[in-house]
């Protein structure tokens, strides 16, 4: 075809393709573009769509059997132009809808059908000339519509038949039918064909009537010169208007009236009304319609799109100037006046600020206080009297350092610091859907975290494995299993709802991205889901650039009310055993089907057995059912991880306008946040991009990751981070109190190979950490909130430390890790939102092993400010409530532990005074002073007298004494 002919043909398509619709088609040449044979509006008048003529429901040689239905008030998803919407929203419906077209010339055809849903999802099959072309199609949420097809079909008897069949009271809702002649590609009606060879009149029309409208009404927000570019849309260049913005393409010459541009200026959709608060004149609207109809002739050649490609509404230069986005510096520790006090750089950074404010650091705390502080800090448990004695006796210079190293090496360290991480990643043992399905494999991830802290897995590796452990396999089975388990971080994202169709996976991905931002980057990137972040430089396109990575990731299915079985978990088998495993899985499924079939057959048989044999038949059925359950519970002969894998095909995501998945905008390639460099995937990348994302997060060019982690560690040692908002380093967060110290620590952290234990040592070996918590009047005036750390902040034991201490003192703490929870057997799972999974499992293990549910707070953790199991807890609240006091007064657990503790004290062969002393040492980490012993002995005496008549007044009095110790401020407080 000559260039001229091609132009002519293009012009013909937008100007006069109506003729094509009526042209009778015979068998077309194979491979050539298909042409429209007939299009039918199944319940309505004839109309023109995409420049093609559609026949109405009274068309000849066509019948449609079913009920007629119309409801034009349902908003469509995705929204579309008014004419198409009118066609879609009037339909033929029923449990069986039959369409038949006759007199069709022999040949190859391709068929499309428009379906829609006016209320809530239905399920149906579609059969085209006896071939099932769609099985169990879900019609989706109210307003959903789809153009299904193309389905090829060969017609030889002149008849084309399309049946829709909906089983179980369902209904199909069919709106429109398109039959294309030929087996070549069907032209995409939504793909605009523009006029690139405009006439002089057309250009004059643009200059006189269109360009002024753009300049006057639109350029303020939609040009390269806009102060703040809105919606990613540029109207100041040809490339810009033809590309469209975040909400998608702007116009289609085939249907000017339904073009987004025209609908926007007509204010047809309140969310897309432009300009937002006023309307452009009617005449200008008419001009725009005419201009689009001409194929949008446009003489402008300057490409503002490329120039503006890197900018949205964000001023990147000033955005990058925010402290958190600046590169990590390596400042020198400052000079200080009191050169004798500092023992290292940390002390110098802190002292310099104190001196500036005219303050001095607090004196060193008492050594017993220090050991209690350190032991709780690193292990969440109290020091034993033997440890106290040993430490107090060790007066050598290195005593403190030895204590630090001893505690860092203790397995209890991982249980304590792993819990801090589990707070951040909103760990839970259930999925969070309406029925809150249990996840029996989730504990593997919990244990992986604890173990990672204990073996000091470098933090960059810690990040990599959680994001992409499954992609970073080594060939060593045990290592690889652990890496797979690490991706439980992604798998643990919250699930929603109870339905299978319209399953809100986008919310689960949102939950993932929310946690990704807060946990690793200290950024609230989820704010950019519906609109550009209002405070931080994160445009919506950045959000969906990351979204594509997780949308290309297969999450495991935890079960849901309407689909109760787990699936897509990752088997923990070596690569060479994969085949064997697949075979085992196949056999297992086969056996299950066989057993289920047996049950079915027995049921059938029992219908016809004689009355006398009913009972026996029933028994056989029950046995067969038990066999199915036993088989299901036996599971597969290999372990499973609640972990992720890449989907077979990765793809970029489409922007969801205003966060609504039913409103697709433009496609965004997967990449990292623009403000952090915007790294993109290499062209050759085939996978989801998670491994690359992990690399971007821990790259030396990203200043956030190291800063965020050192701040978390600092926060747990000093009660508050150098940045007081650990999950938000953005403009809504707090600025660092000691920015130079933060950067110095971040630099050392990287230098130390991201070793968390090395970071602990640096902080704990500072003199600042060993300060007393007593406050002077001057300090409370000049630094009431202790931002400058001129004293150690007094702190409450958190929920876990309190409970674990009660177990330690009762002598019944289960030392071994907890392992899996005693969840019900999968064959018993029948959870619904009416009867969701709900359990509290008693255990004497450490509190990090308590089973945590998403939709029911653990009753103990709820009272004592436990972590939120639904969203990242960067820092726990520390509240003081009467309910906590009631718990310590009356809860059976507290009383039980007091009884055990009392027995321990009584079993000592010692005087009452010695027992009191031991009680103090165990509970408070110190011996009684002043009149404390005297008061205690007097109390024991009165309590015994009060308990006369009880079985054992002596025992009662010690129990009462134990309860007193458990309730003391000093017991619950760390100096």
């Amino acid at each position, binding site marked *: 075809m000559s260039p001229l002919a091609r132009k002519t043909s293009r012009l013909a398509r937008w100007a006069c393709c109506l003729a094509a619709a009526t042209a009778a088609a015979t068998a077309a040449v194979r491979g050539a573009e298909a042409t429209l044979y007939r299009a039918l509006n199944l319940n309505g008048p004839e109309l023109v769509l995409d420049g093609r003529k559609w026949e109405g429901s009274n068309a000849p040689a066509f019948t449609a059997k079913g009920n007629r239905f119309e409801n034009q*008030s349902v908003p469509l998803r995705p929204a579309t132009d008014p004419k198409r919407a009118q066609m879609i929203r009037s339909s033929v419906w029923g449990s069986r809808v039959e369409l038949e077209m006759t007199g069709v010339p022999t040949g190859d055809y391709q068929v499309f059908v428009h379906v829609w849903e006016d*209320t*809530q999802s*239905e399920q149906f099959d579609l059969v085209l000339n006896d071939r099932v072309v769609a099985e169990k199609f879900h019609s989706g949420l109210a307003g959903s519509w789809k153009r299904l097809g193309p389905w090829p079909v060969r017609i030889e008897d002149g008849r084309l038949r399309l049946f829709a069949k909906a089983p179980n009271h369902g*209904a199909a809702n069919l709106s429109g039918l398109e039959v294309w002649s030929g087996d070549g590609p069907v032209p995409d009606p939504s793909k605009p064909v523009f006029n690139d060879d405009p006439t002089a009149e057309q250009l004059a029309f643009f200059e006189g009537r269109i360009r002024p409208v753009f300049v006057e009404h639109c350029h303020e927000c939609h040009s390269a010169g806009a102060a703040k570019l809105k919606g990613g849309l540029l109207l100041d260049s040809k490339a810009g208007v033809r590309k469209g913005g975040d909400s998608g393409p702007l116009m289609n010459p085939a249907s000017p009236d339904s073009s987004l541009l025209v609908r926007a200026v007509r204010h047809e959709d309140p969310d897309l009304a432009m300009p937002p608060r006023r309307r452009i004149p009617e005449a200008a609207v008419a001009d725009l319609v005419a201009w689009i109809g001409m194929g949008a002739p446009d003489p402008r050649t300057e490409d503002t799109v490329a120039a503006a490609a890197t900018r949205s509404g964000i001023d990147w230069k000033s955005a990058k100037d925010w402290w958190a986005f600046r590169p990590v510096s390596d400042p020198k520790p400052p000079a200080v006046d009191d050169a004798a006090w500092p023992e290292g750089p940390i002390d110098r950074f802190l002292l310099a600020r104190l001196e500036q404010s005219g303050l001095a650091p607090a004196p060193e705390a008492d050594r017993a206080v220090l050991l209690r502080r350190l032991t709780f800090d690193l292990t969440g448990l109290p020091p034993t009297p033997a440890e106290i004695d040993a430490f107090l006796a060790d007066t050598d210079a290195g005593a403190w350092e030895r204590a630090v190293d001893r505690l860092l090496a203790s397995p209890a360290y991982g249980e304590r610091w792993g819990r801090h991480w589990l707070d951040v990643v909103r760990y839970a043992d259930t999925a969070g859907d*309406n029925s809150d399905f249990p996840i029996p494999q989730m504990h593997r991830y919990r244990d992986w975290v604890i173990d990672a802290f204990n073996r000091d897995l470098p933090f960059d590796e810690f990040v990599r494995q959680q994001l992409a452990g499954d992609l970073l396999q080594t060939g060593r089975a045990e290592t690889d299993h652990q890496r797979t388990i690490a991706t439980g971080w992604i798998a643990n994202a919250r699930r*929603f*709802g*109870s339905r299978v169709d319209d399953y*809100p996976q986008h919310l689960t991905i949102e939950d993932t991205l929310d946690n990704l931002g807060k946990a690793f980057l200290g950024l609230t990137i989820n*704010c950019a889901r519906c609109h550009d972040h209002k405070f*931080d430089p994160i445009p919506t396109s950045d959000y969906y650039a990351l979204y594509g990575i997780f949308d290309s990731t297969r999450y495991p299915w935890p079960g849901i009310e309407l689909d109760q079985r787990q699936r897509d978990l990752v088997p923990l088998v070596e690569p060479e055993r994969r085949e064997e495993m697949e075979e085992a899985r196949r056999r297992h499924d086969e056996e299950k089907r066989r057993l289920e079939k047996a049950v079915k057959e027995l049921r059938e048989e029992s219908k016809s057995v004689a009355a006398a044999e009913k009972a026996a038949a029933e028994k056989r059925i029950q046995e067969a059912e038990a066999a199915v359950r036993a088989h299901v519970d036996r599971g597969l002969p290999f372990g499973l991880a609640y972990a992720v894998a890449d989907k077979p095909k990765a793809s970029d995501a489409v922007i969801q306008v205003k966060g609504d998945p039913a409103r697709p905008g433009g496609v965004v390639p997967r990449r990292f946040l623009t403000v952090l460099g915007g790294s993109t995937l290499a062209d050759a990348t085939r996978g989801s991009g998670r491994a690359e994302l992990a690399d971007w997060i821990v790259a030396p060019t990203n200043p956030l990751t190291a800063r965020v982690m050192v701040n978390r560690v600092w926060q747990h040692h000093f009660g508050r981070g150098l940045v007081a908002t650990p999950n*938000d380093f*953005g403009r*809504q*967060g707090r600025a660092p109190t000691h920015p130079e110290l933060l950067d110095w620590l971040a630099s050392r952290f990287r230098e130390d190979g991201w070793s968390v234990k090395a970071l602990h040592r640096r902080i704990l070996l500072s003199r600042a950490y060993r300060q007393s*918590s*007593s406050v002077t009047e001057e300090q*409370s*005036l000049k630094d*009431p909130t202790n931002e400058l750390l001129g004293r150690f902040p*007094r702190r409450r034991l958190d929920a876990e430390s309190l409970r674990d201490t009660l177990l330690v003192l009762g002598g019944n703490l289960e030392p071994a890790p907890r392992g899996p929870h005693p969840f019900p057997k999968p064959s018993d799972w029948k959870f619904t939102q*009416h009867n*969701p999974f*709900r359990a509290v499992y008693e255990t004497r293990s450490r509190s990090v092993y308590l089973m945590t549910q998403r*939709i*029911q*707070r653990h*009753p103990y953790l709820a009272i004592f*400010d436990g972590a*939120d199991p*639904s*969203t990242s*807890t960067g*820092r*726990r*609240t*520390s*509240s003081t409530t*009467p*309910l906590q*006091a*009631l*718990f310590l*007064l*009356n*809860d059976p657990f507290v009383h039980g532990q007091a009884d055990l503790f009392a027995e321990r004290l009584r079993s000592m062969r010692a005087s009452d005074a010695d027992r009191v002393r031991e009680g103090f040492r165990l509970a408070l980490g110190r011996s009684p002073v*002043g009149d404390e012993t005297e*008061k205690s002995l007097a*109390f024991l005496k009165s*309590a015994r007298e*009060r*308990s006369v008549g*009880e079985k054992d007044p002596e025992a*009662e009095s010690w129990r*009462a004494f134990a309860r007193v110790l458990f309730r003391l*401020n*000093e017991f*619950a*407080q760390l100096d």
Partner: protein
Amino acid sequence: MSTPLQTSRRETLRSLVGASLLLPGLVSDLLRADAPDAQGDPLSPKPPLFRGKASRVIFIFSNGGVSHMDTFDPKPKLFEADGKTVGIGGGLSNQQRRLLRPGWQFRPGGRCGTMVSDLFPHLRECMDDVCLIRSMKGEDNEHYQATLGIHTGSFFFSRPSIGSWISYGLGTLNANLPSFVAISAGSPYAGTQIFNNDFLPAYHQGVRVVPGNEPIANLDRRTVRSGLQEMELGLAGALDRGHLKARGNDAELAARIRTFETAFRMQTDARDVFDLSKESDDTLALYGMRRGQTDGFGWPCLVARRLAERGVRFIELVDGSSSHNWDQHGDMAEHAQHARNLDQPVAGLLRDLRRRGMLEDTLVVWTTEFGRTPGVDGEKGRGHHSACFSSWLAGAGVRAGSVYGSTDEIGATVAENRVHVHDFHATILHLLGMDHEKLTFRHGGRDYRLTDVHGNVVQALLA
């Protein structure tokens, strides 16, 4: 200049409000208005933004989806259902189904003449105190999401409950009782999330009360021997005082000592709330209760009045549970037993509040999570329907004896004056003197509101 004790009280308050160090909204007002409050208690009463008519709320929630067209929204057209005409019906899926005739006649109630069905003969007589909304609209047809939505304004993600927001905004008037109490015999849809404080500090969580022997967990003394607990607290107090003194009277330590005093008193004071023995026969009859009865809805309603008298800010009464409730897919006739359980106690509560003058400053709210379909589900039931339903307000500041909004002729969609769940919440906060756009809490880098970024106060509901 402030004394050390005062500044350290401020420090405590800051630490008490927890992760949010920026103290937005009313908590910062509290810090500013530091002087008069000697208690240092974050739950101490806080002045509202403006003078609201209501100072407390009794929020009655009926689980399962109460049919509007069988209770508060008369639809004559539906009574003509001929078994052929179709409309929205079905379970979750809202298919086209034949219309189902309502099972109960409607009659006018009170002087205002608001039409209410025979399911609620007692409540019908209270219509002069009620502002009925027939144009409520939610966003989701599933119990869980809809229940979460009507309680938190969020249909998917967990957020603080409306009771927690109100406790956060206004504090409590009685330091010996929690500010937010949820009386719930069973577990509702969406679990404890519906009375959870979520990211608000833990003082604002709804304290669950379960009708029966120990209505609040750990309220009963476990040391039976009289005086022993007092002795224990005596020794603890002595040791704590020494500890406190050595630490410059640290306000947080002092506050914790006080919680033990409060808890100690709660063992008797809170017990007293649940002790109905001194209520007269006349009062019990008003609530339709037998003496000593703790099952049924009379106990929660009467206890709600007693909690309200004692200054509890927000009292939620949960009618039904996730497994036993108004969710009648199969046979609408079962609505009768649930209505019987609710009708007289709630009417009794309104009357009791009125005769004690408490309706002047108590807002009573009744709602469900969604309505039901005009078309049939199953044999004789109705499906879930969030597109429209009925709720009502009574008492302080509401336009009593009025009806607002309407649905179409079969009750399938809102016809006029739509009240979205967010509007409903905004109006409740307004009645308490709070602006739903200003009651915010900073969490995770964002100022959160009960109404998210939506909601308008519905002026027509106000007196």
